[in-house]
């Protein structure tokens, strides 16, 4: 089932409102929707709600043999299949362009920015390394899947604890959660995506577009930053051409947003740690 295009009335109303300086859900141009983080009972399970967009991330690990050319490198894998639960437009077993873009962006933001220390996942060089798997389940699609997925993935990785191991000579013992306290992953920095949508020939830009806004937009751009004001990834796949100044302005707005979101993630993690 394809998503129905918004009616002319809806489209015109949204564009007219934007021209008058308002968004239809009452947000300011550079506001995110309310972000809610819920942790599961086990380590590494996080449900993220960004307004009506809902994403579940689950981290799991296993011990595998590394590649021979990189004997000390652990693995980090993402599974970002779009489920038809999020929208009936997503079909099982058929990748849409949107799905490819979303998974590529997550990959770039998290793996290629070296957010996770993969060398730290090595147990015995050339023999055994940890493979960390992040399953991202999209439950409800109300726009901006990328930002929600990115927040879910990094929060789940921060929340996750892997079993402790001891190596004596050639013998490797993996301790169960009851035997020894599990250990957190070593994470270098927290990359956070901020997505912008452009309207009115690129003159009007907004943060965190909703589904309707995504359908009407002229172009979009995703900036991935961390709190140290470092750009981890930047993606502008098509859409209307932009001026360089605007891109700079986007990154400046993103810096503020990233600081807010990072603070919220850390506060949520601390609150959860106290409960355990």
């Amino acid at each position, binding site marked *: *089932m394809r998503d129905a295009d918004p009616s002319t009335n809806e489209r015109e109303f949204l564009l007219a409102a934007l021209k008058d300086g308002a968004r239809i859900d009452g947000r300011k141009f550079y506001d995110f929707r309310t972000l809610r983080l819920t942790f*599961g*009972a*086990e380590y590494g*399970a996080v*449900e993220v709600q960004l307004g*009506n967009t*809902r994403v*579940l991330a*689950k981290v*799991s690990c296993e011990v595998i043999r590394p590649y021979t050319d990189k004997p000390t490198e652990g693995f980090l894998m993402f*599974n970002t*299949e779009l*489920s*038809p*639960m*999020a*929208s*009936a437009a997503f079909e*099982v077993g058929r990748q849409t362009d949107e799905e490819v873009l979303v998974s590529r962006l997550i990959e770039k933001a998290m793996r290629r920015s070296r957010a996770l220390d993969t060398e730290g996942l090595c147990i015995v060089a050339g023999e055994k390394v940890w493979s960390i*798997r992040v*399953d991202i*389940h999209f*439950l*409800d*699609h*109300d726009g901006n899947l990328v930002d929600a997925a990115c927040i879910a993935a990094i929060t789940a990785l921060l929340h996750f604890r892997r079993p402790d191991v001891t190596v004596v000579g050639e013998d490797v013992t993996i301790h169960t959660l009851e035997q020894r306290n599990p250990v957190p992953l070593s994470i270098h920095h927290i990359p956070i995506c901020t997505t912008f949508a452009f309207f009115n020939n690129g003159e009007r830009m907004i943060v965190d577009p909703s589904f309707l806004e995504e359908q009407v937009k002229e172009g979009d751009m995703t900036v991935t930053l961390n709190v140290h004001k470092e750009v981890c990834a930047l993606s502008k796949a098509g859409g209307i051409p932009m001026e360089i100044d605007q891109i700079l302005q986007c990154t400046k707005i993103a810096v503020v947003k990233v600081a807010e979101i990072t603070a919220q993630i850390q506060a949520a993690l601390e609150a959860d740690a106290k409960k355990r």
Partner: protein
Amino acid sequence: MSRLDRTRTSAHQLRPFFSSQNLLNRADGSAQFDFGESSVMCSVVGPAEVKLRDEKLDRATIEVVVRPLVGLPGIKDKAREQALRETLEPLVLSGLHPRTGIQIVVQTMKDDGSILATAFNATILALLDAGIPLKSILGAVTCIVDAETNQILLDPTTQELANAKSTHTFVFDNKSSITSDSTQEDKEAVEVSTLYSDSTGLFSEEEYFECAQICYKAVQAVHGFIRTAVQKKLEKEQQQIHS
């Protein structure tokens, strides 16, 4: 005897239920159902447009998609899809919506055993939420026969499943439910209608029927819970309309 999960005192005790309906905004109906730390989310879209090759001239096509918590869908998930679809097909009044499709997506949110039973209960709540016409309501419960004690344990956790000699999942409809005001004769006259039964492992005939009996009694609680959940939801909706 205390159970392995330490929260339950009896072998025939179910974990606490939790349900929530109408959670998702893009689906026509959705629900989450929990048995303790096992949780399943289900969404329903339909009756809607259907692909030409799946179209049935006299009834709605029911499509079930089961998605695991970790990894890509495998054979186990395909088996669950088939179990859900074939159990629901006779239950849904699909003849009322010919040449349409009803898509059901089942997503495991937390896994601590008895996932198939949890999925059945979540699905029926989501179908009710979507307003799909149904013949009756179902309720599902899993039980195991413990390998050491030969005791029948209801609603097992992952840990308990590891010690199971055999595992049995039963689904019953609510047409034959024993209500509090039914007389003794009614109770004896009810014909238990089993919608689905799945057993794995080694077990005797007596064990199987004992399991079925225990699960049937336990399912009455699930039926009652579903009834209350729907009732509460409708009352809330009524209040919203009148306020």
